């Protein structure tokens, strides 16, 4: 068995910025990422959607690179860029030919040092974000299902339960003071990690990080609200109307253990036993064998990247001639079997081979064809920000490969319980009303 070993160098600058370099000269390309340890989970109350709106503002201008210059300078260096907001981190990343590395670092440092935006920029991006929400959620069949539908049903703490894309009234209420306050609180070097991956030497990467980021002043340690949930002791259910789609759908989510606990490794493999594509038990039983569902998939969203309550979620679209109850019974039968029997020995062996193969693909993989090493960047960032241990990228695989059958069986019994789950039903409007007007 060939093992993949990622070479890593890392250090923390005097201002608290963590730096991770992963040199690899295979291609004359370098990927740069800056991750801030703040996502939409802990955005301010009354400002739902703000962390994401703020992410857009980071492209609107900094002290020495005004509006439109970030995008122009990366594209015109032969590179691509983007950012994304998730539960517990927000990232900004670029992939460029390696001769543009210093330029990228200068740009990232410039916007970490000082954001320079005005009301017009904010209005502009508020409009852009609303169209983003419309195109991804409000004007799409099954838009936001289940990632926006599930939280208000499953969780009780506002941090986990609110609308992460943002209520439009909250987006409208956000002003420049909010923008600057959020920036000052969370976008400090001591709450971030800089990653440089690809065509760079370790020592050069560290020196460049010092050169461009070293003199950014540290900020106060950011305050983080408590995201913990009260213990759940009853099944929770909710309904969401489906405006466009034609099939009834449901999502069932079970609470997950904390990252890097023994239960977490076991649940990860159990998740693959259930949701591992067409060989997974859910798809096999509901789609291929019983033929109740048209699709059944799901899993643990961003398994390495969450830092608060999360779920393993199954998403089912089923044939209209089967009721929700009948579909849920078929789902329950799959859950009952792993609770009663655990999984088979040869199944576990297969899952481990597949896990290893998928893990390598994640490390190499881009996000689309033009973002190499996105997966490696993401894992290194999460292991650094949450665990202060980037080397986990080389060792964490062992934890998954060591999981035993009885641990999976025990995890199934402990976590896959009705009183620990939430269910969202997304039901199409009646066909007759759909055709009206």
């Amino acid at each position, binding site marked *: 068995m*060939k093992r*993949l070993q990622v070479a890593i160098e890392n250090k923390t600058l005097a201002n608290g910025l963590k730096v991770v370099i992963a040199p*690899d000269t*295979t*291609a*004359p*390309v370098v990927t740069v990422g800056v991750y801030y340890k703040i996502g939409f989970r802990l955005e301010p109350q009354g400002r739902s959607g703000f962390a994401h709106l703020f992410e857009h503002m980071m492209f609107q201008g900094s002290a*020495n*690179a*005004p*509006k*439109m*210059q970030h*995008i122009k*300078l990366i*594209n*015109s*260096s*032969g*590179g*691509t860029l983007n950012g994304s907001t998730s539960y517990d981190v927000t990232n900004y990343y670029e*992939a*460029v*030919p*390696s*001769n*543009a*590395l210093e*330029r990228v670092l*200068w*740009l990232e440092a410039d916007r970490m040092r000082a954001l320079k935006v005005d009301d017009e920029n904010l*209005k502009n991006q508020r*409009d*852009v974000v609303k*169209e*983003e929400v*419309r*195109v991804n959620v409000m*004007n799409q069949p099954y838009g936001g299902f289940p990632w926006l539908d599930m939280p208000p049903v499953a969780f009780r703490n506002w941090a986990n339960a609110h609308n992460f894309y943002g209520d439009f009234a909250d987006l409208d209420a956000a002003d420049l003071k909010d923008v600057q306050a959020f920036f000052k609180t969370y976008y400090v070097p001591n709450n971030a990690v800089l990653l440089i991956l690809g065509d760079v030497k370790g020592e050069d990467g560290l020196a460049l990080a010092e050169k461009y980021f070293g003199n950014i002043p540290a900020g106060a340690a950011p305050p983080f609200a408590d995201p913990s949930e009260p213990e759940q002791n009853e099944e929770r259910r909710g309904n969401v109307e489906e*405006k466009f*789609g*034609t*099939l009834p759908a449901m999502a069932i989510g079970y609470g997950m253990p904390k990252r890097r606990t023994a239960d977490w490794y076991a649940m990860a493999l159990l998740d693959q036993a259930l949701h591992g594509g067409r*060989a997974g038990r859910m798809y096999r039983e509901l789609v291929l064998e019983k*033929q109740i569902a*048209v699709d059944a998939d799901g899993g643990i969203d961003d398994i390495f990247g969450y830092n608060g309550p999360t779920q393993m979620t199954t998403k089912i679209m089923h*044939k209209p001639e089967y009721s929700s109850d009948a579909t849920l019974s078929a789902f329950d039968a799959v859950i009952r079997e792993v609770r009663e029997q655990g999984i088979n020995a040869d199944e576990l062996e*297969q899952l481990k*081979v*597949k*896990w290893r*193969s998928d893990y*390598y*693909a994640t490390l*190499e993989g881009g996000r689309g*064809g*033009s973002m*190499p*090493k996105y997966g490696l960047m993401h894992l290194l960032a999460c292991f650094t920000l949450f665990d202060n241990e980037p080397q986990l990228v080389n060792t964490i695989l062992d934890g998954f490969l060591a999981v035993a059958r009885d641990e999976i069986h025990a995890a199934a019994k402990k976590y896959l319980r009705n009183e620990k789950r939430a269910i969202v039903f997304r039901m199409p409007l009646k066909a007759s009303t759909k055709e009206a*007007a």
Partner: protein
Amino acid sequence: MATRTVEVATGVPGLAPERAVTWPKRTKARLPNGLEVILAESHSIPKFHGELFFRSGNAAVADRAPGLAEMTATMVRTGTVKRASRQIEEDLRSIGADLSSAAGMDTSAISFAGLSEFAEPLLGLVNELAREAAFPEAEFERERRQKLEEVKLERTQPGFLASERLRKVLFGAHPYAQLSPSEQQVAAYKREDLQMVYRESYTPGNGLLLLVGDFDPQAMLQNIEKVFGAWTGKKPESRMAAAPANPHGRRVYLVHVPGAVQTQIVAGCHAIMRRHPDWVKLGLTNSLYGGAFNSRLVMNIREDKGYTYSPRSGVSALRQHGYLSVSAAVRNDVVAASLTEIFYEMDKLRSLPVPEAELADAQNYLSGVFSMGLATQDGLLSQFSNVALNELPDDYLETYRQKVRALTPDDLLATARKYLDSANMQIVAVGDRTQIESQAALFGELEVYDAQGKRLD
């Protein structure tokens, strides 16, 4: 046009000298049975990516039914004479492999990726799927039903409805006009029809096997000869459909979706195929127009005006024809304003030479992004397959950047005048007619359809 003055950045570090871009060497072979093989090493991870292409897709059998090649590809993984569906899926998992089978307009393909240590069993399974698919009756009934639900669902997606209408408008009676089958057409699929497509198309004479990854090419080639050598079958006769007429004059097609809270716009015109000598010129023109984040259209209707989140233009090159399209999902009250800017930016590129500095930026962009594919196995695979399937010259990858760099403002002006066919663009707007009809009608003679494709008054 942009209403805001653009400020420049100060103190930006210059670019270091470029590192040379070296594409990995390709090992090419043709087996005695006609199967073309291309192999390339990439040792970034202990895996490999592969694709077995057949040069026939939905267009080749469109006279029988739309989507027939896609349905055939779907069935290929559901059972062989040796393995049942469940066995195939478990065997794949046991060697850590991913596999999918699909068909586009011009090709059918089995795509796969797996650990290098299990290359032999994975190639063995691919060979079995390509030669001995069994099309089990029960699997066929199940997949057809799933397909039926899928085509129903498509008709609720604004992006699909827009692309579908544009294809119909641009390609008329040509097979490329049919993006997807109707429910009735799916219901009429017969297992025997799929088996016939399989027998005709899935042959070594029609095939191209591409592998990129962590292996030794000579050893891999021997392996391939062993696995695929005994396969036989000729290339099917290719039929060229009559060329579609080029639509003349702007027209507007409104697809009415009651209650839509946004309008999906797409506009398009005929363009060129990959092999065309103007391809690189059009690629660069497109990246200036709306093909990059930094492009004129994105800066205008997103970063300046905030009409939309995701405006984009692109050139779609199919084997027999190509087309250019521009799309944006916009607020209902700015449909006319967005179309105005879409045409303004097009006409500007048709009228005024691109400033040298902007041209240099766009050349850097295209040339830099092109080499990102070097960094991953599937990135390499897609570049190599692009060259092979489109029969581009052997040095296409190696010379592409020079060709981009050689272009001048005059070249781009001529290219824009030739291909950004502003006066003859066909416009599709998917949205609620009560909100957008009067805006859409400003841009040409209007036809209104419902989501099922029925013409409305």
